[in-house]
């Protein structure tokens, strides 16, 4: 049974069709990778699912309901959390406060004016931070953290809203190879434990081929392939537009 269904989604910016009649679905508990060259429309697709953009055409269903054209906050409340390509956290708050803010928003306690926010959900926040390995930094200002750590905090923030689906836009961009594997291993463990499904984009093929249950490939706004690691690796079209011929022959053909 599928949780998320994207049905003939289209979105243009001026003359450019960023997403062009895109359809795919995500099964319960699935770890789905969305790959493709830069400019293929992956981020646009993410931003539509997340509600930052409205599609020109088509729809997104989540748990049976149409969610396209809802604002991000409503989509979050329906159980879709996300992390951003450039990690987005609240720089002026401590690490724990970042997670507490997400917990407060999730519990619909934003419009409270009296008791200090720092007293809300502290224990729960610390527990989430422990799970992502950031408990020791709980009271440090978020702006001081190294980038890899900010990504972990962002993960804790995303988990705080108790999502059923986690969208991750290039979760390992800007990280060293070892850090990448650690982060994705962590994500995988956390989501499996909670039964969350994940849709992520990624440029690191190691990560994609090692962790993804299934891979879909976009190019120029369209879906060009859908399958497991082996079928994608050997797909001629994918090799041509994205993986490169080198993946097949070991080197590029010399040109005239």
């Amino acid at each position, binding site marked *: 049974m599928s949780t998320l269904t994207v049905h003939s989604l289209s979105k243009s910016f001026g003359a450019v069709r960023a997403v062009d009649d895109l359809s795919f679905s995500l099964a319960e508990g699935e770890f789905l990778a969305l790959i493709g060259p830069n400019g293929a429309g992956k981020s646009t697709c993410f931003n539509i699912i997340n509600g930052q953009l409205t599609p020109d055409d088509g729809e997104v269903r989540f748990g049976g309901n149409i969610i396209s054209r809802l604002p991000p906050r409503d989509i979050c409340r329906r159980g879709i959390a996300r992390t951003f390509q450039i990690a987005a956290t609240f720089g002026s708050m401590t690490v724990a406060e970042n997670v507490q803010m997400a917990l407060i928003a999730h519990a619909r306690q934003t419009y409270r004016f009296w008791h200090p926010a720092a007293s809300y959900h502290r224990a729960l926040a610390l527990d989430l931070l422990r799970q992502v390995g950031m408990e020791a930094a709980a009271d440090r200002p978020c702006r001081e953290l190294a980038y890899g750590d900010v990504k972990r905090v962002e993960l804790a923030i995303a988990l705080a809203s108790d999502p059923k689906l986690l969208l991750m836009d290039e979760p390992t961009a800007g990280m*060293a190879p070892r850090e990448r594997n650690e982060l994705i291993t962590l994500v995988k463990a956390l989501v499996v434990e909670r039964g969350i499904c994940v849709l992520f984009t990624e440029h*690191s093929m190691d990560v994609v081929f090692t962790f993804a249950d299934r891979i879909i490939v976009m190019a120029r706004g369209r879906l060009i392939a859908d399958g497991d690691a082996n079928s994608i690796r050997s797909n001629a079209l994918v090799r041509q537009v994205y993986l*490169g011929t*080198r993946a097949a022959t070991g*080197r*590029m053909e010399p040109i005239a």
Partner: protein
Amino acid sequence: MTAPPALEVERLCAWYGAAQILYDVTFTVGRGEVVTLMGHNGAGKSTTMKAIMGLLPRRSGVVRLYGRDLSARKPFQIARLGVGFTPEDRRIFSDLTVLENLDVARQPPRLFDDGTPAPAWTPDALFRLFPNLAEMRHRPGGRMSGGEQQMLTIARTLMGNPLIVLLDEPSEGIAPVIVDEIANTILELKKQGLSILLSEQNVGFAELVSDRVYMLQKGQIRWSGPMPELAANAEVQSSYLTG
């Protein structure tokens, strides 16, 4: 005394805000040579180019173009001395047509340090180099595909009649057919005596055009050598490029 190389970079350091990105990066590019900076996203390739171009608020170290110190100069002065910069995100003026984009970058012709004239470009000459740009000379930059924009950004850089071109990831996100064309262009420019500093993650592409390679990791040069040597060295490739 031997003639100075086209570009000399010595102990270049650079910062974004408080974070140091480059650590004592040192390398040279000879006249008519294609040198490639390789490494992961975030290794410091783009930062190196921006630092050479004077586009970072804080940097230290020395950069020389044919012996002339560029370190304290502003970006427009560096460009006027003959450094052409093609940024990774292309930065086409989307409101301006192809011809207008080219016009903004127009500079007077220039000489190499030995007095020989550097290639001088006109829009017509560039349209011969990139025939499909000729067909869309009145089209606004914003209505071009990624590959077309990539060609335009190279053409725009050449309008400044540079002595050296800094090409930041020209093959990134570009259809393979156009990547081939860009490779051809680079070889053509090399033939005309221009030096090229390329940044690239794709060994296949680098192999087609480069003479030498510097491998960057976390803002430091970790390996350097002739291109064929890298192509044959799977160990270096796997430790700095894949994964």
